[in-house]
């Protein structure tokens, strides 16, 4: 059933996304774009001493991509750069493989239904691809155009 995809937590985060605002004092920024559906996402991070102190996003997208970005920013806070990358890999595995969900994914397991909708995997991973490019970027003030 379609409710397996759109679980309550996903609907909640898509209707009331958390951390959905530009960030003053962000030192990492990346832009994500899904040319297939036109979804755009701006990700802002504040990383100090290798730890993600704050994370936020802006963008327009479907319920899956919005909820994914919202839950991702929640789960990043307080994580080291390495922990964030590991989480990213586990999240990717959750969506693209049949292996059981990693225990430390926490609330993010709510996206397990996406693997049955191959056309929607990219919606759920947009924020995470953007995270990778933000973390791999250099510490620099965000240029706001």
């Amino acid at each position, binding site marked *: 059933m379609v409710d397996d995809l759109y679980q309550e937590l996903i609907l909640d985060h898509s209707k009331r996304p958390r951390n959905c605002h530009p960030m003053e004092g962000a030192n990492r920024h990346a832009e994500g774009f899904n040319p*297939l559906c036109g979804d755009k996402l701006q990700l802002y991070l504040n990383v100090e001493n290798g730890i993600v102190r704050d994370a936020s996003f802006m963008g327009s997208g479907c319920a899956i991509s919005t909820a994914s970005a919202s839950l991702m920013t929640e789960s990043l806070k307080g994580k080291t750069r390495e922990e964030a990358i590991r989480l990213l890999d586990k999240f990717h595995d959750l969506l693209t493989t049949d292996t059981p969900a990693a225990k430390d994914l926490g609330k993010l397991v709510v996206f397990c239904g996406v693997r049955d909708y191959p056309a929607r995997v990219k919606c759920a991973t947009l924020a995470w691809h953007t995270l990778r490019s933000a973390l791999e970027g250099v510490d620099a003030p965000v240029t706001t155009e």
Partner: protein
Amino acid sequence: MSTLVSTVQTGFEVDKVREDFPVLKQKVHGKPLVYLDNAATAQKPLAVIAAIRKFYEVDCANIHRGVHELSQRSTAAYEQTRIKVKQFVNARAKNELIFVRGSTEGINLVASSWGRKCVKTGDEIVVSAMEHHSNIVPWQMLCEEKGARLRVIPIDDRGELLMEEYVKLLGPRTRMVAVTHVSNALGTVNPVREIVELAHKAGALTLIDGAQAAPHMKVDVQALDADFYAFSGHKMFGPTGIGVLFGKAKLLNAMPPYQGGGDMIRTVTFEKTTYNELPYKFEAGTPNIAGGIGLGAAVDYVNRVGLDKIAAYEHELLIYGTAALLQVPGLRLIGTAREKAAVLSFVMEGIHPHDIGTVLDRMGIAVRTGHHCAQPVMDRFGVPATTRASLAFYNTMAEIDALAAGLRKVKEMFA
């Protein structure tokens, strides 16, 4: 039942034509399939499937080459399609019809062959703001190569061409006006006859993208006076990978070949090659023979059902569908032209088209979501994407009711 209402009003026996399309008989996710993605590709009647099967089972051979029986049969069947298509679009002669992979290749052929020869620095090509990418990008590539300029006819909020702006764009530098007959993203039916006449007065040629028109209305290239007219087989109930480019013989004769290879030559030596006559000059290599034969069967099928009846019934579906969708709270139609084909493109406040598409799919309803290969149209209306239900003559009013009910469920879920 609403299906019966339609039968009474136009005399169109939709239940009977549905029997011709085996794909429609299935269930998807446990629900009867409601196929509303006809502008992307249309389903195939048994007659088309049988023609392709017969070719591979009985007549399979290469064409225009062998003296043996099978080669003669396959050549005859393939060339018979050209005659059928000539009648279908009312061309003057069958050598004005070139088989291509689809509308996209037809447009590329003209941009490449005619464009390379005839377009010079400072020349202008006119397209419209509602074109499919396939009628933008080939011209853009040509303009870049030649230092020519692409001009765009704007559209209004209904999705109609601004004809007074079009007239202003025409001038001594205009070489080609390339516009769509029917918009795939908006459903707008353009005043092609008038567009062609104005272009000709300015000394420009015209190419009409007929991909969305040919399956739904009578096309008469002589009455339109179009210089080129391209359409795809798969959107008119034929196979994929086959389409037709119509071109006026005197223009085609003056154009250099598009691709080199077998079948397009008369004589070949290492010093010089002379080219075959029309249409073979533009048909290098072994073509999509089965596709061509399938297209012939599709033309026969559409003729049998009758384009006048199809157009009348689809118009009725459009009226019914428009009213049904406008009753869905928060739904806004994108594309409300006065002359419209049966395309219902829409957005719902606060709900992304991909979520709409996924939820509808689980109800067995197939719609298209995204930019429909017409990103400039999305930009014009300030939306990243739309949901599009595009109808064919085998769709029913009951299916439109199912769509409207599905959209109400979507609204409940995401509102």
